[in-house]
């Protein structure tokens, strides 16, 4: 896997005028965000869905379709568009909408519906359908009715599995208060992961492989953990029960504990982001190997077909497993962090007993 990740660097070192597939472009085009959704190439013509652009520049709010930006790059490597805006080709703001203000390139307030935002909407609608349909079944039936069948039965089983084995196992009595957040977390991440691995629309959009998305999820866990932390939790951070010399002249343990408040959600964020980004990169790389081999030589291409297809199937199955596991690990660790923040002091524990 790591060899494949390093492979793009080797590919860029070789001569650029190689006919065949643009490996780097395909890979980064799938993983990175963009203002249009490039679905496929029919022959030579690309099939693109142009997404709306919503920008507040120095000339006010502008809403227009991203096809208004020209396909060709001008002399400076930018793609010009209306209202003095252009899609920049410079290193700082690569592929972002910029405008020139007093000679400097400035990225205005950009609330466009980009590809990642569209994928977010699609995933959210899919998640609502998957959860609200079984919920309606629950409203219409009584507790003693026989178990549901089909899709509702499957979702019911799935949700109860996560609730019992992850949420209740960590949180115990307080499971019901935090179950909505944790279950939403799990199913959102799972659906977003699966949709990212699907190679055709409406899937094929990279949402959890975008660090902004995982950053927000980690922030949610961070806020919930620390806002609902008990007094004993905060006391254990700033004045832990360790030997005096670790606390008094140089507050070593308090510093370490304070940083661990931040590193735990940070680890959650990077784990999910890296797993998903690497997974998408592998899925695309294995498919691209086939096309690269065909570019080298027709014989090499045909002989690689079986190997590449077999590898792709194996990697796709592994990807689906990884999607599930990463969602599970994120939710489980969030549940564990929340339960750790609800540690009871000794006096409280004695009265509860």
């Amino acid at each position, binding site marked *: 896997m*790591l060899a494949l990740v*390093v492979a793009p*660097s080797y590919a860029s070192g070789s001569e650029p005028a190689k006919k065949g597939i643009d490996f780097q472009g395909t890979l980064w085009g799938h993983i990175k965000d963009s203002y249009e959704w490039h679905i496929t190439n029919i022959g030579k013509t690309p099939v693109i869905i142009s997404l709306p652009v919503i920008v507040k520049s120095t000339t006010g709010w502008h809403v227009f379709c991203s096809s208004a930006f020209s396909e060709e790059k001008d002399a400076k490597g930018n793609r010009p568009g209306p209202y003095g805006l252009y899609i920049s080709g410079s290193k700082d703001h690569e592929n972002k909408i910029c405008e020139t203000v007093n000679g400097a390139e400035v990225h205005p307030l950009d609330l466009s519906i980009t590809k990642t935002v569209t994928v977010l909407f699609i995933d959210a609608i899919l998640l609502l359908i998957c959860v609200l349909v079984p919920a309606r079944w629950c409203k219409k039936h009584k507790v003693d009715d026989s178990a549901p069948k089909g899709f509702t039965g499957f979702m019911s089983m799935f949700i109860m599995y996560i609730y019992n084995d992850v949420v209740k196992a960590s949180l115990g009595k307080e499971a019901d208060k935090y179950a909505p957040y944790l279950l939403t977390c799990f199913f959102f991440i799972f659906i977003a992961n699966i949709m990212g691995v699907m190679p055709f629309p409406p899937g094929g959009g990279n949402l959890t492989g975008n660090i902004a998305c995982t950053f927000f999820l980690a922030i949610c866990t961070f806020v919930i953990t620390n806002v609902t932390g008990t007094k004993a939790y905060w006391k254990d951070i700033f004045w832990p029960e360790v030997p005096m010399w670790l606390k008094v002249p140089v507050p070593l343990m308090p510093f370490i504990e304070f940083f661990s408040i931040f590193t735990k959600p940070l680890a959650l964020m990077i784990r999910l982001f*890296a797993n998903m980004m*690497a997974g998408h990169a592998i899925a695309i790389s294995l498919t691209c190997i086939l096309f690269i081999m065909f570019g080298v030589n027709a014989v090499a291409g045909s002989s690689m077909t079986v190997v590449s297809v077999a590898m792709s199937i194996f990697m796709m199955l592994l990807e689906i497993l990884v999607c599930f596991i*990463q969602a599970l*690990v994120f939710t489980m660790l969030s549940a564990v962090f929340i339960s750790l923040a609800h540690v009871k002091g000794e006096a409280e524990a004695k009265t509860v007993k």
Partner: protein
Amino acid sequence: MLSLLLADIAIAKFGAAVGAGLAAIGAGIGIGRIGGQAMDAMARQPEKMGDLRSSMIIAAALVEGVAFFAVIIALLALFA
């Protein structure tokens, strides 16, 4: 010797590749140990196989998370 100092982009790529390889070694050792000890435990207590399997997969995911930190840093060194 001086030309080695000037080849900074090449050195960054070399460093990234070596870093990614070391991360692979670390992940391999860690997950190998987890798998091996899970095998031992399953052999001792076959009735606990389900629990052990789930715990093994979760521990492997956590160890892989750490390996991924190294991969991200390697990617940053490669492309930035």
